[in-house]
């Protein structure tokens, strides 16, 4: 293999991994940390993409529209938590049903608002040469985001007062409440934080793929797979699982077909969970 081929292959592999990180990191907070099975996660990504689209259409630059979209979806998540999720903590099956219903409503609402058509934002930036290969500059942005977002989550959860209290509120709610943490408020902010991260993921996807109300379905399974394989250490777990699953998917897609690549991802997830039932970062029993 020539060095330029290897370099370009490595870059696209990193892009695939980064994409998995980006679509999963919001779910890592909501499902991994808070243990809420949010079946509307795909639709939160979709909302992020549509919010970005609206921002760009309203004249914002793409780079500004993206963080704005994340904030918009975060605010939306806050409302959802207050109206819906708040009443369902600890009720696993009910949460699943409620968020699944929410996902259907969101898809239809966006169809009504924006129409069912596929919209698009052209990929920004251009490409650069790597020997005989050329690579999209936007893939570097994705790789950067794949590093930045987990770092941000780590900083927020370990280095801020909110982060410590939020983790306490989800891990030992009674104890946290006993020492004066307003757990209900903490959960509200955590859900909003996870939603904003999902919004950011959708915003980053928008210039890569078609922006369409049904786009969430294409990502939700992989996001759950990544977080579950990642295990209890939500940040390192999500990044590690993205690396393993994304790496396998990309390598198999490249050597055979994208169909087998998807199959290999699923197969790897099943085998990993069979061998490590608590995920990559779970303690061996």
């Amino acid at each position, binding site marked *: 293999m020539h060095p330029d081929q290897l370099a370009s292959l490595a870059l696209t592999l990193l892009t695939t991994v980064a994409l998995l990180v980006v679509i999963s990191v919001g779910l890592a907070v909501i499902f991994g940390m808070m243990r809420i099975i949010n079946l509307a996660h795909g639709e939160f990504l979709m909302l992020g993409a549509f919010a970005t689209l609206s921002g760009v259409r309203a004249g914002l630059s793409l780079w500004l529209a993206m963080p704005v979209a994340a904030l918009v979806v975060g605010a939306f998540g806050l409302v959802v938590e207050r109206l819906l999720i708040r009443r369902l903590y600890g009720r696993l099956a009910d949460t699943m049903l409620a968020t699944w219903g929410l996902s259907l409503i969101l898809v239809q609402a966006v169809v009504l608002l924006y129409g069912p058509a596929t919209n698009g934002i052209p990929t920004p*930036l251009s490409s650069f040469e790597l020997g005989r290969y050329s690579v999209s500059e936007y893939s570097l942005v994705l790789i950067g985001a794949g590093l930045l977002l987990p770092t941000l989550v780590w900083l927020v959860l370990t280095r801020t007062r909110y982060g410590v209290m939020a983790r306490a509120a989800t891990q030992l709610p009674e104890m946290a409440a006993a020492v004066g943490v307003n757990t209900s408020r903490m959960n509200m902010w955590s859900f909003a934080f996870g939603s904003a991260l999902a919004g950011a993921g959708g915003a980053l996807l928008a210039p890569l793929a*078609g922006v369409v109300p049904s786009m969430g379905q294409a990502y939700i399974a992989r996001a759950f797979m990544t977080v579950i394989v990642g295990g209890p250490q939500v940040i390192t777990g999500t990044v590690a699982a993205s690396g393993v699953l994304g790496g396998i998917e990309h390598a198999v897609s490249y050597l055979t077909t994208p169909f087998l690549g998807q199959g290999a991802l699923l197969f790897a997830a099943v085998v990993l969970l069979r061998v490590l039932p608590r995920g990559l970062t779970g303690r061996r029993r």
Partner: protein
Amino acid sequence: MIALAALVVAGCSGGSGGTAAKDQGDIVVGSVLDQTGPLNIYGKAMTDATNLAIKDINDSGGLLGRKLKLVSYDAQSANDKYTQYANQLAVQDHAVVIMGGITSASREAIRPIMDRNRVLYFYNEQYEGGVCDKNVFNTGVVPSQQLATLIPWAIKNLGPKLYVLAADYNYGHISADWVKKYAGQSGGQVIGTDFIPLDVSEFGSTINKLQGARPDAVVSLLVGGNHIAFYRQFASAGLGTSMKIVSPTLGLGNEQVVLSPRESKDIVVAYPYFQELDNPENQQFVQRWHAAYGDDYPYVTDSAATVWEGWHLWAEAVKKAGTTQRDKVIEALESGLTFAGPEGTVKLDGPSHHLVHAVHLARTNDQKGFTIIGSQEAVPPSYEQSTCDLIKNPNTNQQFTPAA
């Protein structure tokens, strides 16, 4: 529960419907298309064309002194919805003709239902060819018209080495065989083929492979909203300078409208219909379309024109037969009907149940449309004609495919 079954009722408000109205009242006709989901990129224009065609037939007096009443369903890009609604149209709504299906997978899902219920069925979309079924009329362009024009053009003008990217279902697989066959006949060669599942929207590994293989042209048989991402990622990786794309599907879903002109630059396609066609029927058609759906309608697709032709050919056959009864209408349809549509005059080839189409080659332009670069009039569906004669062998019921 989430039934989005948009019940569109066109025409007059005649109170009948249901089983009793066999010979008086409105004529119930059915349509099932994807109005939402990833396949709606095709379904939107096809649904609009359906409504416009029914309105047009009703405005010019209806059929046999009666109005048409359209019952239409949204299959939401799901094949199980197709079978459900096709059954409903045949059994509950008692439609005398059903038009619809977009992907070949959806067509094959509902074709047996129409056959079983003996309801006349029109499939109005470009496809991989070869369907031979007395009950079915295929008005879309087929490979012996479309790929037989596009592939030799690509080999002559771009180079002999082709790389095929195909949607991973029956359309993509059979069409990939056709590409191989036509490439071989014109002295070219398919150096790689990748099948892409419909829900894939990341093409990183595909783009790596293309850069490794260095074909002269990429033949894109990609389908649906998710696959639009390929053109975007192809352009963003800067591949457009070293290889060109030709496609028998790009444009059917208005990909050139969703993509920026920079991303859809220099892609060559072949269809019987383009909005830009310069003939009086088409000018009138586009005018009427804009009057109904607004001047800012993105682009009237080949699929829309095909749907329009399907409904009008059926209407002509009903007029000729003097009844909506299936066997009589089939006989009329097989009698060599012609229709002056937006693409020019099309002729229905009786024995094969396919259309003789004009085929134009065109290149994407910077106005989110196409510039026509070559035209061929009256191209017969030669493969279907060579394999399928439903007048002589009315009991044939299969899809012929090229031996790969």
